[in-house]
């Protein structure tokens, strides 16, 4: 309780203490709607074009004090989260922070990523926010360094991308995202709560892009395997890391003979992915179905058919974002009158998207020290993830990031609290604490 109270106090103090950003000289500024019509700080100050000249310590500025920055957004997937993010960037952030966004098509490979970066350079883009989590980060940052293009990527700090942190790259603003071990723990706890004593129901895991090095998907799958190992005292014939990274469907060999099946890929990596997943489910061997990526929209029909055909209640958990598809899935009854989905670890699209924007924007406005740890290396900002397991929770969460009503968990006040131009005394440590303090309880209270 003390912790919660402290967290709440910290968030409130930062939020209210920093609302001066843009308001000192502004004519009007709604926190949840309408465009910012902030006036120039003073007629003599002019625009600050070069990032290096910006951000004089101790002096709050407004977005209008800077040139209009151009930011490229690289998307590796195409789903309702990416649509929502685009809306958030284009219609909410862009007018308020005097920035322009350039969006990529679905980026699937390093070659696609290179093409988009080059196109961005031709268009005069200042920085890239990448949602492509891959081991190519080490190489891509070198490309960005050459073009003097800021690069912020949604991933975690793993040995595979270590060079990007230790290479001394000036344009590497850092990384941000959910610590995969948190997702892994949520999955573990959920399995413990639903699994039978002997594990005879069988477990199927769709490991999504784990085989391509996607950290989140890999950790999710590893978390499930580790949980099963803990609960049933299993011994696998290979390491959990290797099993989770399989690129072909795999019946996981184990000493207790439990049915554990890993099915890699997504509907976008293979045209036959849905058919393969359906076929596996229709064997009736799997009573618990865990998905490392939000693919439930494609597997829902198969789950329903199996539940009806085998008269078995399949428990389904997924790692997803708050979206219409998730809400629909939770509000759809299965044969037994339960929700089609039983548990979802969710991220807020606006929260995740704002973290990327804040990283790049702080760098562009001269507050790059906010993106650096004490040893000078690029920072990793951890984003909390929340486990939702009831319709009420999901329906409530659905109202938080809403493009039509223009309500966002990470609204203007929340963003301002993390910007150097609004808080000249902000430090990297404070920023890390700020993100940590935004818990599910805080969001529920804040959004209500």
């Amino acid at each position, binding site marked *: 309780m003390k912790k919660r109270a402290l967290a709440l106090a910290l968030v409130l103090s930062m939020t209210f203490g920093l609302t001066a950003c843009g308001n000192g000289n502004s004519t009007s500024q709604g926190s949840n709607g309408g465009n910012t019509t902030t006036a120039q700080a003073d007629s003599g100050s002019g625009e600050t074009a070069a990032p290096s000249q910006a951000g004089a310590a101790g002096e709050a500025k407004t977005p209008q004090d800077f040139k209009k920055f151009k930011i490229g957004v690289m998307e590796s997937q195409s789903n309702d989260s990416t649509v929502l993010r685009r809306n958030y960037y284009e219609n909410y952030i862009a007018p308020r922070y005097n920035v322009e966004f350039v969006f990529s098509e679905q980026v699937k490979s390093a070659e696609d990523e290179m093409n988009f970066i080059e196109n961005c350079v031709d268009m005069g883009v200042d920085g890239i926010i990448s949602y492509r989590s*891959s081991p190519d980060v080490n190489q891509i940052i070198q490309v960005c360094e050459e073009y003097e293009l800021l690069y912020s990527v949604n991933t975690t700090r793993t040995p*595979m991308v270590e060079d990007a942190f230790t290479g001394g790259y000036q344009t590497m603003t850092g990384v941000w995202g959910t610590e995969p071990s948190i997702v892994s723990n949520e999955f573990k706890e959920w399995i413990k709560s639903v699994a039978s004593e002997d594990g005879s129901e069988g477990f199927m895991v769709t490991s999504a892009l784990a*085989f391509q090095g996607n950290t989140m998907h890999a950790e999710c799958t590893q978390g499930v395997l580790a949980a099963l190992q803990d609960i049933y005292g299993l011994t696998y014939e290979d390491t959990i890391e*290797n099993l989770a990274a399989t*690129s072909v469907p795999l019946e996981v060999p184990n000493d207790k003979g439990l049915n554990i099946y890993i099915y890699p890929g997504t509907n976008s990596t293979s045209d036959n992915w849905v058919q393969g997943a359906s076929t596996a489910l229709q064997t009736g061997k799997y009573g618990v179905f865990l998905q490392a990526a939000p693919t439930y929209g494609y597997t829902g029909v198969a789950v329903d058919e199996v539940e009806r055909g085998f008269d078995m209640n399949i428990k389904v958990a997924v790692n997803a974002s708050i979206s219409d598809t998730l809400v629909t899935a939770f509000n759809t009854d299965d044969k037994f009158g339960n929700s089609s989905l039983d548990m979802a670890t969710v991220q807020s699209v606006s929260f995740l998207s704002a973290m990327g924007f804040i990283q790049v924007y702080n760098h562009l406005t001269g507050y790059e020290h906010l993106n650096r740890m004490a040893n000078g290396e690029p920072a990793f900002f951890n984003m909390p993830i929340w486990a939702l397991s009831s319709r009420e929770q999901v329906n409530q969460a659905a109202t938080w990031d809403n493009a039509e009503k223009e309500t966002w968990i990470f609204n203007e006040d929340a963003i301002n609290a993390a910007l150097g131009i609004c808080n000249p005394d902000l430090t990297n440590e404070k920023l890390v604490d700020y993100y940590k303090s935004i818990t599910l309880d805080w969001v529920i209270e804040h959004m209500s």
Partner: protein
Amino acid sequence: MENTKENKLPQGTRKLGVMDHIRIIRDKPMFPLIFPLTVLILIIAGFGIATEGGFFRKTVLMGVFNQALIIATVSTAMTFVFAAGNMDISVGSAMAFSAVAGVYAYNATGSVFFMVVVCLVIGVVLMSFNGFIHAMFGVRTIIISIVMMQLYSAIVSLILGPDTVSIDYGLCRQLENAGFRNISFILFFVFCMILFHSTSVGRKLKFVGGNARCAQQTGIQYKNTVLISFAVAGLGVGLSAVFSIIRTSTVGTTLGAGMGMDVMLAVVLGGMSIFGGSRSNAYAGLLGAVTVSALNKGLLMCDVSPMLIQGVRGIVFLILVFLNSERPATLPSAQD
């Protein structure tokens, strides 16, 4: 008035419609070159105007070429396969296989020359193997390529797992800045043009693509001709693997994904039918790849949203495919 005009036509003939006129224009010998080239010039000019000259900048035009280079290399090589009426969609997987082998070769020896040789050899071996199975057992090339695509991808995934392999970025930039890719491509393109348009190889391929049985009866050895076409395709696959390594300095399991379709698209956009035959040429791949690249870059520079980009690109492709894909009515082809 209408009746009078109709009456002037000789008996047994009919008035030409719009489609007839399109077909007549389409059947002109120079159409496969002039039409895609005109479209490409119009696209570049259109984007140049829309971006107030921004698209004409040297860096932008070079970027268009650079981004088209890998597809252009494979497409140019694959025109040899398509010309003979065959298809192969395993080029992406074969390229990834070659690239992985090349990176390992470089990391083991530190020799760029060895890396290039390994890539080329692996590329030629893999593609020749596809051609060999077709030539020996008569299995359709498309079926072989579907199976081989899975096999090559599985091997690459097995070798790499979730990791990527990479080589020194600085070395890649040195090679890039020295024009290695551009010079290599030009040499390869000239080689293909000469082989296809100035030797008997191209003529035989077109003849085989037009009607394999007829070609065989005139003394053309079908198996040898097909094997040559796949060997050249392998050379292109190997070279594109080298280009890919140099461009990104990293190789992962996603390399080459969907390339088979991109290559077919490039060839059709470049003015050649993927069913081969007499109107085949070696430059279609380059024209098509540059067109796709110019469209992608230009639409993005014009601030067209990614979703609209796909739509606009689709419409342009449909028009070009409609105008390019049909062959003139001749003898029955291999597909007939």
